């Protein structure tokens, strides 16, 4: 049960997450991420972790609920 989450107070719209997780994140017209909101499958987990680490603003998180 993993999902990506955004801390909106940190996100500055760098957009790396959309490049690394194109199936889960798209960018809106201002360059901020729009989450598809679906579960991250076990196979996608390494990519999701990479995206979390790549976020320059430390705004992306993986939540397990």
């Amino acid at each position, binding site marked *: 049960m993993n999902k990506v989450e*955004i*801390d*909106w*107070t*940190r*996100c*500055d*719209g760098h957009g790396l997450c959309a490049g690394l997780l194109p199936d889960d994140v798209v960018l*809106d*017209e*201002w*360059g*901020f991420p*729009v989450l598809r909101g679906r579960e991250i499958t076990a196979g996608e987990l390494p990519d999701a972790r990479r995206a979390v680490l790549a976020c320059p603003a430390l*705004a992306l998180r993986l939540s397990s609920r």
Partner: protein
Amino acid sequence: MTTIDSPASLRSAGLEGERHRVIGDARVLAGLDQGRLDLQRHLLTHGPQPELTRDDYVQLCEAVGLRGRGGAAFPVALKLQDLPARGVEAVVVNGSESEPVSRKDRLLLTRSPHLVLDGAVGLAHALRAPHVLIAVHDPAAATSLREALMERDDQLAIEVRDTPGRFVAGEARAVLSVLEGGTAVPPGRRVLPTRRGYHRRPTFLSNVETFAQLAVLARLGSRGFSSTGLTSEPGTQLLTIDGAVQRPGVIETPTGVPLDTVLQYAGAEPGPVLLGGYHGRWLPQTDGVLLQRPEVSAGIILALGSGTCPLGEVTRVAEWLRSQSAGQCGPCVFGLASLVDDFARLTIGDSQGWYDAQRHLGLIPGRGACAHPDGAARFLTSALEVFDDDVRRHLSGQGCGRPVLGVLPVPGGTR
């Protein structure tokens, strides 16, 4: 029905516009017909606060289905049950009434401060919380509270703190941030004050009116409290009515009173009605609407009347909502700015403005640290639905032929 207007002495004391009325029995507004209740008059009116245990409070709140009166309408019993058995750090009274139209909390704090203090102190004793903090942003409310505190000895650390007046600064976690010396903005992580609040310790935080209702509930018991109002959520509620009405101000009514009764009572002009303030919704019609939580939110009712241009009014409020963003979250900052532009364009007949507004309204909700973008989007979405005919007339290029009178109060605006 009884009508109570504020005496001339209070009007001259800078409390003009703090008129209040009561439909049915006065409970939280009891005894205010002769002005502010000092400790002696408070005790004569309400009697002493009974000492109850934490279990008593949970049972009472559960029995009457009491909900928070700040807008989110969260059940108080659930909030109490979420607190740990020991180690509750503080009870926080959120009096930073940041909805610009709302006057109910200010009225309670300036006129009946002891009732609010009884509610907060009684609960703090029951929870064994060593601190009571009251966050206010109105100087008259702060003065009234400090005067009231001089009259009583509660064996607790009670503090009155001033907070900024910005809309978003009234959000619960923003209030906690200010109380700890931080900035008045909501944090990025969604943590519950009942788990990590003041001093990062479990905290019970609620709106001013909630504490006044708790004080009344402790005195009346669940049966007495339930003698009026809805069966699902009995008791009374405070409403603030403003806009195109002859008698604006705060009204105490039983819960579930019909909206039309309140509109008639306040002398509202016929026309569209906004329920729940600037995070609320425009109503397609008023008949059959009962005033209850969560729809009534913090109890704000605004009548627009028929002489003003609805789209122009809504655009003014949109501009104000944009200015009240804390500026932390991109979708709120850019989204609200875009929406102000979209509404301005559709008002002058640019149909692209309508399409852009629809797209932007879909992009904003759920994408911020607090509910400000969601509330603003709700307000604007309902405006486009309810004022559909006006939108068509504006898009035809002719406009609706009415001036923008500024019926909807906007702080720092023309009214």
